[in-house]
């Protein structure tokens, strides 16, 4: 069963959750390099995505985001133990997504640093391609 957040005829919006310390700056680096990516991507800046409960992601899907990429600071995270907690939360979110029939591939946890231009663009490309395949 496809969940209520199915893409329909709306553009498949992608929410990109970034960290102030790493990936938000990484996104700026991409801009400074004038690298181009699709505009259906929306960057949210937070100190650390560990602040989000599992239901936050489900709510984002409900509101119309087709894909979510969490660009964490990974092992470079300045907050003690936050990355471990974040990945555990994402693991639990996957279980909830399964229960609701939302493909878990629509949520991706990854690591992007302040200068990771290629990783940033690749993650977006991967999610775009994945969403296109799903919609086809």
């Amino acid at each position, binding site marked *: 069963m496809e969940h209520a957040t199915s893409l329909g005829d*709306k553009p498949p*919006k992608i*929410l990109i959750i970034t960290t102030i*310390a790493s990936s938000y*700056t990484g*996104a*700026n680096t*991409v*801009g*400074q390099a*004038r*690298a*181009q*990516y*699709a*505009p*259906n991507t*929306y*960057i*949210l*800046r*937070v*100190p*650390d995505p*560990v*602040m*989000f*409960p599992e239901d*936050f992601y489900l*709510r*984002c899907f409900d*509101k*119309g*985001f087709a894909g979510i990429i969490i660009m964490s600071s990974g*092992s*470079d*995270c*300045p*907050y*003690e*133990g*936050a990355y471990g*907690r974040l990945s555990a*939360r994402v693991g639990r979110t996957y279980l909830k997504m399964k229960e609701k029939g939302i493909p878990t591939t629509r949520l991706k946890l990854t690591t992007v640093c*302040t200068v990771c231009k290629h990783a940033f663009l690749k993650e977006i490309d991967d999610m775009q391609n994945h969403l296109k395949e799903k919609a086809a």
Partner: protein
Amino acid sequence: MSGAMDEAKVGVYVCHCGGNISDVVDVKAVAAELGKHPQVAISKEFAFMCSDAGQKLVIEDIKSGKINRVVVAACSPALHELTFRKALQRADLNPYLYEHVNIREQVSWVHKGDHDAATRKATSLTRAGVEKILRQDRLESIHVGAAKRVLIVGGGPAGLKAALDSAARGLKVTLVEKSGRLGGHLHEFDTVYPGGQSASELLGKLLSAVSANPAITVVLGAEVKTWDGFVGNFKAVLSTGDAVNAGAVIMATGYRHTAPSAGEYRFGKDDRVITLPALIEQMKAAPRGPLTRGGRAVRSVAFIHCVGSRQIEGVHAPQEDGKVNDYCSRVCCTAALHTINALKERQSDLAIYDLYRDIRTYGRGHEAIYEQASKNGVLFFRFTEEAQPEIRESSVVVKDVLTWNQEVELPADLVVLVTGVKPGEVAELTAMMKLPTGSDRFLQEAHPKLRPVEVANNGFFLAGACQAPMDLVESAAAAGAAASKVAAVLSKDFITLDPYVARVDAEKCTGCEACLPECAYTGALFMNGSKKAEVNAALCKGCGACVAVCEPRALDLAGWSLDQMEAMVDAMASEVAP
């Protein structure tokens, strides 16, 4: 928050940034669309918002009472968030009632080919900024009392320089050194690159300045044993029993030499094979005359670079923690070439072969040392990590990339392994102080470019090779920077902290304690006498881990509340066609 929202009147300012934004984004359309928002009282566009004229627009609109919250859609907040916060302050408005929306680096510069979509996206993002600021409280910076003393851990060159610079800025210093003497690795060298000064003269200058300075207390043979407190008021007890109350800490715990793994290049099996630090020590002990080994004159030496650095999993034996050192140790190329030149100076007929993967003489004046080695007749051979040189009975064999992988056999009375560096033994200390380390195990700065000597933990700073392999020039620069940062933090009797920390709505807190195990910072989050969660703002780092598990939403991160984030998501998700 709640009541504040009703009386909120937001001013939205969309920046052209010359044409940087307006060449792609229809800024007039964005401003017009935002103007329709019921709580946006003013919506304008302007050529350069960061200019004096742009800031004046905002200040005048605030002073005239038309607006009491501000959103500027422009470049990255890293560039001008603070500029506009200060403008709000000048207009007597709480500086945190400001939101900076990035429509340049994250819109106009990356969506050049689709102006309509870029405009729609800029509108959504600016709307999200409005929704966020509508839910923002008047936050106040946090003030905590400050002890005007800095604790410096590690008395190597970086620690000594940091101590002198801190004292020169009027601070009291406690310098704690684990070993029985100050000076760190500087004791090991005869002369130092670049410039070739005498290491003992350099050290002598530092030591006499430190001992003559009454503001500096040195504690030798000591380590930090217990740790407590927060920026402005750290409390340490040393292994000597001394108690230290310091407002800030500079970590200057330096590095250790890596040791070749058992049998690597026959190290430990063949007494012709030694490390670079061992050669430097031998040359320092006998500074003149030809080099000898086992009582016999040495006529040929082969240096092999990158031993214990730039290691590759599967090729090299892992370190104690199971990981390989995949980083470049940076200082060893120049250190080896500096040593080679010193050898050539005392024994010009010595045959020297330098076997390298890459020569990284990166610093000012370092390339001249490399050049000098070439002029001195040193022969260079380049190998790849897959084909490492082989140590034979009285020679070294290398497949030389520079001559299309020709196998060259070189006579070698002595083989010097140019070993790398690894961080000091600080695992216990960093666990106790809860300091972050990178994947290379060196202490980690908050941001490599924007906050290079600060740790994310408030009140902690880094000096020298504890942060990464550094030479003396870089260590001194970092130590000076750390001392100025500390002086800035401790310049007043109190410390001002960003208000972005967790906070508790006591009425909503059910006392379930689910948040407690989420908090990694001892004392930052606790249950008070009324069985409600309470946050010590000076200890909280603002990661938000506790927020995620608080079902009644009693816990929130000031400035980044879940309500704000959800409202932003809603604004981004809703289609707004300008």
